[in-house]
């Protein structure tokens, strides 16, 4: 039995500790917002936070989450009010949308470390998150916009 917290709630799962966190989140905990894209930390669709740090959950064994706090896209706000969600909606970032949970989770860590990132900061921080629709220009603009919203006190 492995115990940790997900989006503020304690959970216990009876699985092999080597099972990737991604599948525990998606199948055991039914949090399907975190996506499977490649299974080898190459695309970023599975990005979540463990104790606030971005982790590719498709290669992170669930044992790594034991005793820690995991945050998924479902947990960043209850009502679409996170600055990144507000910016994403304002700029209509997603197309197919499959990669966007991972994009937002990566961007959240960037904004924590650099509240006013440059284009170069964004490109560098987001390079591990692939978007097959090519929404990169809007992702970049939305991260700048989220930085403004956060600075203006919209942050939770």
């Amino acid at each position, binding site marked *: 039995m492995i115990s940790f917290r997900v989006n503020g709630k304690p959970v216990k799962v009876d699985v*092999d500790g080597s*099972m*990737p966190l991604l*599948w525990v989140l*998606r*199948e*055991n905990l*039914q*949090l*399907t*917002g*975190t*996506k*499977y*894209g*490649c*299974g*080898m930390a190459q*695309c970023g*669709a599975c990005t979540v936070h463990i104790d606030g740090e971005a982790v590719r959950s498709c290669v992170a064994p669930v044992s790594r989450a034991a005793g820690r706090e995991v945050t*998924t*896209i*479902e947990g*960043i*706000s209850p009502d*679409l009010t996170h600055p*990144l*969600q507000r910016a*994403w*909606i304002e700029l*209509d*970032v*997603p*197309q*197919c*949308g*499959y*990669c*966007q*949970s991972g994009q*937002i989770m990566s961007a959240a860590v960037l904004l924590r470390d650099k509240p006013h990132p440059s284009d170069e900061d964004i490109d560098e921080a987001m390079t591990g998150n*692939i*978007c*097959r*629709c090519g929404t990169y220009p809007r992702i970049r603009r939305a991260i700048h916009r989220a930085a403004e919203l956060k600075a203006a006190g919209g942050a939770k």
Partner: protein
Amino acid sequence: MSAAAVMERREFLKLTVGASGGLLIGIYLPAARSARAAAPEGVFAPNAFVRIATDGTVSVVVNHSEMGQGVYTSLPMLLADELDADWAKVRFEPAPVDPAYNHPVYGVQMTGGSTSTWSGFDQFRKAGAVARAVLVMAAAQQWNVAAEKCTTASGFVLNSATNARLSYGELAAKAALIKPPAEVPLKNPKDFQLVGKPLKRLDTPEKTNGKAVFGIDVMLPGMLTAVVARGPVFGAKLKTFDSAKAAAVPGVRKVVAVPSGVAVIADGFWAAKRGRDALQIEWDEGAMADFSTRGMREQYAGLAKEAGLDARKEGDAAVALAGAGKKIEAVYEVPYLSHAMMEPLNCVVDLRADRCEVWTGTQFQTGDHMAAAQISGLKPEQVQIHTTLLGGGFGRRANPSADFVAECVHVAKSAGVPVKVIWTREDDMRGGFYRPAYYHALAGCLDANGVPLAWSHHIVGQSIMEGGPFAAFHQERD
């Protein structure tokens, strides 16, 4: 373009009072005799669907799949504009599989070829215009005035004489009892309120909080997950397999042979994949065993030197090329390319004795439906396709054999419970239906002033139409 929507009684699909007392309008427009007869206006096939609930919610049933291109917003915009709907109350809904939702040009239910918005343009407008006309008739009856005295705006019918107004929600139940008019004028495009204006996509909020449901996200009670070992070569056949090690993986429930290979059915993806990786399989690699990209390229290069079929011939390029002038030769090649959707292929099937339900992100509902009926042995009306969001399509999710759906129905036959087949990223990349490789050999010559004197262009590649349901579209050279 026709300025009026024509709807005859027999063409009227459904007009019923739903459980909520809402208005449900379905529209059949005259069907094309053949796909070839369909003009680019795209208004031949039956289509279009709008529901207005008593709370005023306008649900637009969209017959094209949302894979990022925005049809769950653009097609509702067209309908809502003619309806004079309140855009804030407009919702989208994926269409079930039904001939009423066939592509107006292709004559099958599918999404592809960058055709959805233009082919559905007047179709969705007409659906909205008819709904609006019925709501006006309902209001006119209630006020006991002529319909001409009524106008519409933003989800209301307005009485120009008294300034009274009734919302579409208030009128829905009454409207449901009225036979729609045969002819309905469409707006002059200069009067569009929504079309041509940038509006927010309707699907953005659910794509920023993890709530959007793609095929891979579908969960059913008691569902198992399968990963399939497919042949290492296209056309390979299974000879023998040893499932002992796979079956010993905790969580693996069944290991079964299916036409595409060996399916490992387990409690979840991880167990199924570990089981799949532990299989020992012997394949008969078949006729393609020795096929190689290099060998095919050499063959194409050889074919490019031969005559081939003429796509266009003017003058005598060979003579001009042999004459004076500056000669330029070039070869252009494109390789086989995987469509590489962000969401790897997947499918969920719940197969029962008397029904088969399929959940998947598909671009080709008609083909999937036919395949599922054939494989399950059920009647077409016992098979339903639930179209989810697509994590990208690019054509891979529309193919002649409905491969990812057909395979899942086969697995479901063995599973005995609802089952989801997930392709790993590697499976998806190796699994084919690539954009075909092409080889172009060009030769040209220019005169002293740089003006072209001749152009010879040999193209070698595979047809993407031949052998499939779209072969009818295929001319001598597609």
